[in-house]
């Protein structure tokens, strides 16, 4: 059994516990699943550390490693949400984030993400790789929580519940947006200038990262003009996460560009 499989089992156990407690009489949060999430994240990060050690550079250069790292950061963010005390607890958000982490890890085990460890091409041998990729994925991990909270917002008509979910979604985006900006749209262009001699090339990955950023910018501005938080900002936050997913999966598999490395 591989370490990634152990992490997947821990995530599955956390999700089951969250469901059982959500439908339990008290409806309170279980005390065990946050620790299962932390353990899963630690295992996934150790997988990345071992592969990084083997190739001598931060191993997020392939689809498998990227998905493992993304899954680990989502698990870590889900655990952080469970441990914090400022935001209201939502069983659906906790469960949704845990499932998202497990799904990413399951995709990493699929044929679209070959496991063989490949050494990076010359263009990827840079210290900027770690900053660019890790910040982008950490930002997107907060967008996962924002997406789940927004989906729950759209699914419920309960006023107080909606208010709580809106606050969770906004806080997740407010934390993820600066981190994503730093990773995708600041560190990325700085690296591109050093590697390609052009800080922006309208490559499909760059354009979709900008589209993702603009959609979240739209979300933040919509919240300014719509004082009563209705469905539109939540729908836009959901769309933002779908754009982030397309930036990763869609562009990698459908649109060729400068970010395609064989």
């Amino acid at each position, binding site marked *: 059994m591989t370490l990634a499989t152990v992490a997947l089992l821990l995530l599955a156990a956390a999700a089951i516990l969250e469901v059982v407690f959500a439908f339990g009489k008290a409806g309170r949060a279980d005390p065990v699943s946050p620790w299962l999430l932390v353990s899963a994240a630690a295992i996934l990060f150790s997988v990345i550390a071992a592969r990084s050690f083997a190739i001598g550079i931060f191993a997020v250069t392939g689809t498998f490693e990227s998905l493992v790292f993304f899954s680990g950061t989502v698990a870590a963010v889900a655990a952080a949400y469970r441990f914090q*005390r*400022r935001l209201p607890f939502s069983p659906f958000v906790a469960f949704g984030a845990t499932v998202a982490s497990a799904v990413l890890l399951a995709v990493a085990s699929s044929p679209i993400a070959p496991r063989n460890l*490949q*050494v990076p*091409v*010359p*263009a990827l*041998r*840079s210290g*900027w790789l770690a900053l660019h990729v890790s910040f982008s994925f950490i930002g997107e991990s907060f967008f996962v929580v924002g997406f789940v909270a927004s989906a729950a917002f759209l699914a419920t008509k309960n006023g107080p519940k909606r208010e709580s979910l809106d*606050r969770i979604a906004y*806080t997740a985006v*407010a*934390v993820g*947006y*600066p981190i994503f*900006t*730093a990773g995708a*749209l*600041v560190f990325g*262009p*700085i*690296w591109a*200038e*050093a*590697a*390609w*001699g*052009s*800080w*922006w*090339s*309208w490559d*499909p990955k760059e*354009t*979709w990262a*900008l*589209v993702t950023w*603009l*959609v979240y*910018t*739209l979300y933040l*501005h*919509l919240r*300014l*003009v719509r004082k009563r938080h209705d469905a539109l900002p939540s729908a836009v936050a959901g769309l933002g996460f779908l754009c982030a997913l397309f930036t990763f999966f869609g*562009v990698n598999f459908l*649109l060729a560009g*400068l970010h395609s490395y064989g």
Partner: protein
Amino acid sequence: MRGFRVLFGSVRLAIALIACLVLTGILATIVPQGEDAAFYLKRYGGAAGGLIRATGFDRFFSSPFFIILIALFAVNLATCAIGRFLRERRAGSRRFGPDVIHLGLIVLLAGAGYSAASRNVGYLEASPGDSLTLPGGFVLAVRDVSSTSYPDGRPRDYLTLVDVSKDWKILRTGYRIGVNHPLSIGGMSVYQMAYAEKEVSEDGDGSGSGAEDAASLAAGRSAQAGESTQASKASGPAAPALAGTSTIAVSELMVVTDPAWPLVFAALVVVLFGIVLTFARKLREEKP
């Protein structure tokens, strides 16, 4: 003046413009960019292909439509930023994070426009012994061109070892231009773009007779046509001939001048600083 402020300083206009940028940006990644007219007519048919060409969607990010959209966005940003700054100052508020973001974005857009207008790119081939003259009278004496590999044979890095001089005065010796490690000199940057091994005939002239090694790999992007700098090359001798031919290592170097890059870099840092300032404050103010 008040009408202008109301129209262009509106958050609703900002929302509409951002939505427009999102939709057109997505479309521009779906429609292949930079192809010739026949490609669009064949792929999308007469009407749609003609529409793509007429609206500039074949080269969207340099089309008048996109430039007008960005110009409107810049005016909207500036008007919003000034209005907001004045309102906040009157109210005695210290929430200047959004103003910093807006200012950074305006500088970024200005920098991007300046970069598009002033950036210059040229390409050079370099072999050991070559002497490459760059704009401004800088000379690169190529001492060595090499590649390093991983144990499995895959390329690890491509390197061009050069001495830099100007007016017979040596400025740098033994500088290694590598992928992700450009040479910066006199407002120019010299990038290692690709590496190849070429077979040349005994007379040492690689032109025409050489076949590129099939294993040679581009380090970054392929060469773009139609761009040049005033760089020139004096060829050095080829490696000793074996049975009528010899193999020489050739680097493709890209020479870039972009006077706007420092402005763009500063703008990116300002935008990031503004975003962190804004959301750190907002999150601190969130009720527990």
